């Protein structure tokens, strides 16, 4: 998949300096991951760090699905299936690998401990497996008309879910591992309907940050490669695509396999975030969630999809407990007002960063507004139903589905359209959206 990214996105580089600079994004990704891990992590605290981890994985899933649904105009509804393949592979490698190597699957403390490398290895193996399955599933479907891929991928996700359900319910312990014969491994002990528990939680902010950044870079390079542009420009017109003379079907298969691999990678990391890996992770309901990120963010827009994935992951947390944000109202209001006022002033002076400042201010004020509205709605619901736990987060899927329909009717290009956030900035327009803006 690396070679694919290179093939698709090879920038003609002259001289050593250009060659080094062309690789700079990978270094930036590493830097970002380190900053996220060592600076953002402690600032956020354990609860919000966990939310940030889930957001990063959502970003990986959404950005990778965007390669299929956004770039090629094909429609996959089985992305969660690929993620689950990677997830259960990663979980199995980490868990059973740890049993075999160290006699137990308890988490090793520290930064970059051997267990973490086992997780990375397992996730990469999961990515390879997912890519292989993606090839098998995608090859026939992509040669047919668009909606057949939707059906086939949907079926694929469901098959994965059912197969996971009938996997061995009893996970092996270290002793079982030694005494197990060939037959005990069928069906493979992956937890069955109850799910795979006890996977060590190695997916720290560093790893998810690093891989999320890498996935974005790969997606970016593909988008702005020449086959990527060809795919994008012809995605709504099959006939124009054929007329372009490029064998786009081949690129579609490649893009699909790559997306499956990246989903597998994301799934592998997800298995290490402390969740119980259940078979339903493979089902279409999970796939629909990823589709919502992509559609609302804008089919084809990487930054739009990233914003949507982050926003829609954080939003339920805010809805569940808006009090946390309201307590920080002073900070949010100050940042909001200062950044907005500053941004307006910067705009007067013609600074190109003005929209960024306005966007930041709007985000802060928006978060505060969402928290206040959610808190009011929660209070109303609690008094109406008499249930002290009631919160409007429960109904978010109703809003999401309405937004999905509304977006298609009113703004079919999604939050960002096919363009990137900075494209909007360049035109010196006010920021078109803020993180989670679509959700409010």
């Amino acid at each position: 998949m690396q070679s694919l990214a290179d093939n698709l996105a090879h920038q003609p580089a002259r001289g050593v300096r250009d060659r080094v600079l062309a690789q700079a994004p990978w270094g930036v990704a590493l830097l970002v991951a380190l900053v996220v891990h060592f600076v953002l992590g402690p600032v956020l605290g354990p609860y919000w760090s966990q939310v940030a981890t889930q957001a990063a994985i959502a970003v990986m899933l959404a950005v990778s699905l965007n390669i299929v649904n956004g770039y090629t105009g094909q429609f996959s509804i089985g992305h969660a299936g690929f993620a689950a393949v990677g997830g259960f592979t990663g979980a199995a490698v980490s868990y059973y690998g740890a049993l075999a190597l160290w006699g137990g699957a308890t988490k090793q403390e520290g930064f970059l401990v051997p267990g973490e490398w086992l997780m990375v290895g397992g996730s990469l193996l999961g990515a390879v497996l997912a890519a292989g399955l993606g090839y098998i599933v995608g090859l026939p479907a992509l040669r047919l008309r668009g909606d057949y891929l939707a059906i086939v991928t949907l079926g694929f996700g469901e098959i994965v879910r059912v197969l996971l359900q009938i996997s061995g319910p009893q996970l092996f312990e270290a002793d079982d591992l030694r005494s197990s014969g060939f037959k005990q491994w069928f069906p493979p002990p992956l937890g069955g309907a109850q799910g795979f528990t006890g996977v060590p939680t190695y997916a720290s902010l560093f790893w998810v940050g690093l891989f999320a950044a890498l996935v974005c870079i790969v997606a970016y390079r593909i988008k702005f490669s020449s086959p990527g542009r060809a795919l994008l420009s012809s995605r709504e017109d099959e006939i124009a695509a054929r007329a372009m003379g490029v064998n786009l079907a081949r690129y579609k298969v490649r893009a699909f396999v790559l997306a499956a691999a990246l989903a597998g990678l994301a799934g592998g990391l997800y298995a290490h975030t402390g969740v119980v890996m259940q078979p339903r992770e493979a089902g279409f309901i999970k796939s629909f969630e990823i589709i919502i990120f992509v559609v609302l963010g804008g089919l084809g827009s990487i930054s739009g999809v990233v914003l949507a994935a982050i926003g829609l992951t954080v939003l339920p947390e805010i809805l569940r407990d808006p009090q946390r944000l309201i307590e920080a109202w002073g900070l949010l209001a100050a940042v909001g007002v200062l950044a907005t006022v500053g941004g307006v002033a910067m705009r007067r002076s013609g600074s190109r960063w003005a929209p960024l400042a306005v966007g930041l201010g709007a985000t802060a004020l928006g978060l505060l507004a969402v928290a206040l509205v959610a808190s009011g709605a929660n209070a109303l619901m609690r008094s109406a139903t008499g249930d002290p736990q009631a919160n409007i987060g429960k109904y978010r899927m109703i809003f999401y589905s309405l937004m999905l329909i509304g977006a298609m009717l009113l703004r079919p290009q999604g939050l960002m359209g096919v363009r990137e956030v900075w494209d909007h900035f360049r035109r010196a327009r006010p920021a078109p959206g803020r993180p989670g803006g679509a959700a409010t």
Partner: protein
Amino acid sequence: MADFLQILVTAVAVGSLYALIALGYTMVYGILKFINFAHSDVFVLGAWTGFTASTLLISRFSISGPPPLWLGPLVLVTAMVVCGLVGFTIERLAYKPLRKAPRLNVLITAIGVSLLLQNVGQLQFPIAPDLALPFGASPKRMPELLPDAALLTMSFGDNQVVIGLVDVIIVVSAITLMLALEVLVYRTRLGAAMRAVSFNTDNAALMGIPVDRVISITFVTGAMLAAAAGFLYSMKYPGLNQPAHEVWVLLGLKAFVAAVVGGIGNVRGAVLGGFLIALIEFMGQFVWARTLDQWFSTSMAPTLRDVYVFAVLIIVLLVKPTGLLGTPIREKV
């Protein structure tokens, strides 16, 4: 032998329901060329409307003991009418504005409508004590509208094959509806108009055919058939799950597979596919059940039913992408 026949009875009953649902998918695909993902949710809505209507009627008329014979047909018609109206609303509000939009947008809208129905369906609308309208988040049990009678019992040595009243009613109602549809599509002017619209919308309008109305009627017809299937299904399997439950949605999806296997866009293909998929599902389970369970020493056979269905889908798409009775679909230029 007895086991085999018993499974066959179930397969035919369920197959006729798959066929009913598949008809809706295939009719909409034939005309609008997109997968109406919300169709399986209309099927679920049919079951829940049936539940609500029968519970309401039973309490309103203070029926105790075995319900009168008119109740079943009345509930069936109610479910069909309600779902027909829902289908009409969906088409007008969500799909009609997108007539000229790229197909991908319509597909996403359909997914949105599907999600909406699933999630609204989990809300409770209390209209009477102990009654939520039209569905709810917790499982319910369909009241028994039919006596649990065996119509025909055959003995094979020690084993018996029972053909229940429910099975017969399901098959008879389903086949009646299918015949009615066959007459509508192939014997009436409206049916000819539907086929004309499906072939070429623009030219159909030039014949003086009100295209939008024909599309609406097609949609409503499909929704009504799905509602009937939902209600009939809940007569045989009275446990009602919440609307987003995988079991429910999978039933609708299997019917969709039936439509594709039979040749999407082809009305007779949908019927053929419905029976075929049910046969494969239940026969697959029957043939493999013991073998697999001996092999793996678990009871995995029931869950694997869905795998057979989707495996058949993938094989059919590989071997004959247009489905068994389908004609090659022309890309519109």
